[in-house]
């Protein structure tokens, strides 16, 4: 889709007559006049396009950019009895000193890592298998996508019952009937994060599978035919054709996955009561939520938000850097 240019002019302001020193109006620069006219003409021509952009820009201004700026400002402020004052780095210091701060980073990074191993690799494998299928592909695609349709809270409530720590939990029922040791799942600090990852992967992988599938189906069939003629088996075809042909989608999905999983929130909230046992489930976003809405500490929450934003900016920057490369393909 063509992008409507917002401005094709130079954007240079008209020269200030007083700046010429002798008080006389300088003769108009012909090229500037021409550019100004051209700019106005293009503006007129693209008026409808600009009008369409107003809504989107307004949405970004009010719902994305303004809150971001406000968050940064709030991270240096504290409000008590209706009086807001600047407190320098005090909010950052308080968050840094919060005993749950280290656990929140540890849990979030572990979740991100595990979510990448499972939530990133598994959908790709499923997409490859689905792509290879000759029959029932549509049906299986729907089956894989179904959990995405489920509201996350509802899906996680299902997992809450799956994870019940006694025999009334379905998973423990199966484990004990197979003669395997039962698990406390989200009530055991060692299994909390993996339990959250499994639930999250099940809930979210449908979308990733569809994206990968779309990318796979764009790979020219001739490449596979050539590979087959050369005697390549399934694994070789995947290694030498599929992965190279989808590497850009893979890298973009990787970055999106990192940004999304680092904002872990609803899984610990529903499956582990927010913090889990001794902060075994506390994530950065949950800690932020806790400071803002349970501890009456919006400044601290904003400071933590800025810290997370800076980390995510790096990944988002990489995403922006990679996006034009995809368009080139």
């Amino acid at each position, binding site marked *: 889709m063509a992008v409507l240019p917002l401005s094709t002019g130079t954007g240079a302001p008209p020269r200030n007559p007083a700046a010429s020193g002798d008080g006389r109006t300088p003769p108009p620069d012909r090229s500037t006049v021409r550019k100004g006219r051209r700019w106005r003409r293009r503006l007129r021509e693209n008026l409808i396009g600009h009008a369409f952009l107003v809504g989107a820009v307004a949405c970004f201004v009010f719902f994305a950019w303004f809150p971001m700026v406000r968050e940064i400002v709030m991270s240096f402020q504290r409000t008590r009895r209706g009086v807001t004052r600047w407190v320098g780095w005090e909010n950052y210091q308080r968050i840094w000193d919060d005993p749950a701060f280290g656990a929140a980073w540890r849990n979030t990074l572990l979740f991100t890592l595990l979510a990448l191993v499972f939530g990133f690799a598994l959908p790709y494998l499923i997409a490859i298998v689905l792509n290879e299928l000759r029959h029932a592909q549509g049906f299986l695609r729907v089956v894989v996508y179904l959990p995405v349709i489920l509201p996350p809270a509802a899906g996680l409530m299902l997992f809450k019952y799956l994870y019940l720590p006694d025999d009334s939990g379905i998973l423990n029922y199966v484990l004990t009937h197979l003669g395997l040791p039962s698990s*406390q799942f989200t009530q055991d600090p060692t299994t909390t994060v993996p339990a959250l990852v499994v639930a999250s992967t099940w809930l979210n992988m449908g979308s990733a599978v569809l994206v990968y599938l779309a990318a796979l189906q764009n790979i020219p069939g001739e490449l596979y035919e050539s590979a087959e003629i050369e005697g390549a088996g399934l694994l070789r075809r995947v290694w030498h054709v599929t992965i190279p042909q989808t590497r850009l989608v893979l890298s973009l999905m990787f970055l999106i996955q990192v940004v999304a999983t680092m904002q872990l929130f609803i899984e610990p909230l529903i499956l582990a*009561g927010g913090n889990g*046992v001794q902060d075994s489930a506390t994530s950065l976003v949950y800690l932020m939520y806790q400071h803002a809405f349970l501890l009456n500490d919006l400044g601290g929450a904003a400071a933590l938000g800025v810290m997370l934003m800076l980390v995510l900016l790096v990944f988002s920057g990489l995403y922006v850097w990679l996006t034009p490369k995809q368009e080139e393909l």
Partner: protein
Amino acid sequence: MLLRRFRLATGIALVASLGISLAACSKSSDESGKVTITVDCPPLKTYNDGKTLEQWNKDVADFEAANPGVTIKSISVGTQCNNPPDFTARLQAGTQADIFYGYMTDLNQVLDADGAEDITDYVNTDTIPNWNDILDSVKNPFIENGRIYGIGYSAYTMGLVYNKKLFTQAGLDPSKPPATWQEVAAAAKKIADAVPGVAGYSEYSAGNTGGWHFTASLYSRGSSPVSADGTKANVLTPEAKAVLQNLKTMRFTDNSVGTTQLQTWPDLLTAAAAGKVGMYLGAPDSITAIVNNFKGSYADWAIAPMPGDNGPAKGALGGGNGYFFKKGLTPEQIKAGLKWIAYEELTPGKGQFDYASQKAIGLPVGLPQPLIWKPGSAQQKADDELKKANSNLNLDDYALYTGNPVPPVAEPANAQAIYAILDGPMGAVLTDPNADIDALLADAQAKIQKVLDDAK
């Protein structure tokens, strides 16, 4: 040219009409004496098949008829009335109703957010005729430095709620419930041993409710998570250690508190309604929640006084709720709001005390709540008589609780922040057989001290 003029005229007309409409919308009290106020947290439409909401709407209509010129607009915020994060969100966004519901522990954050109007000059026996008969413990949580910011209308003290049916099944006498923590542990073990799949005693440990009950257990043993002057954390005490040790023993030695932990309010009450809980700490109205929200039965439940340590409890956590007045209300709106609260919440025979109507729509009458009148006051006597005349419950089930009152102890300042911290040790001793109680308490002590220091 004509077109341009038409556009100009249309633009001016639009702006003018928009301005007039906005002015009309924002004006909630005018010179003709008409006042409009919004009030949140009416009964849920889904509660009691909508009959309780119908009764509320009838009360609103009756009030408006008795007070010409006053219009009450009820604003439903769903179950968010009892969800602290949603309350905070509304408060910070400034989207609370004119007369907005809050807990007794909310004054601090309401004032920090500059969300409530000082109504001191309007609170008197003209606006609230029964003001002098209301307990100070109900009024004080809404007062700071002598200035009033809200009106309390409901209060509770915690007790031991128990399932009579399970007591009988376990060979225990339902008329003699446990009176000490030691007896609670013994009874819980008997119930858990006798009825498979049942927790003899159940406890919260997430969503701030664990800390709430930790505090209640400390009060019952004569201790508190903060010092008397509210400046020092106070959980490195034998009482705090005893609370945690008792729960740990019940969980891992007696196996009497079930395996599912990290429970919040609905988790525990859902299990209780399903007959899976022998005892828990709660206010009398938690039985109402078990029946109305989770389909339990009144006949199964009774309430006893808070257990103590080797004797009667030294204190019972008391809490409750009230209505704040949004910052910026006009004097007329404040007066109208006070009159509405006086009518709906603070008059025997009306609103929350209209037991005849409540009985008619199937609500329980006879529960020992809300406890807001001064003992011996005219209002308390009137309330008792009305309650007895309309009771549809077996009052014997609450006789031990009402007949042996435990001194109420108010929740600490910054209660929600302290509760959030105390969830941690509660969750740990209920899930980890190797939980180090001393280390847990040392950690909680440091965190609470930080909250107290930050609040200065």
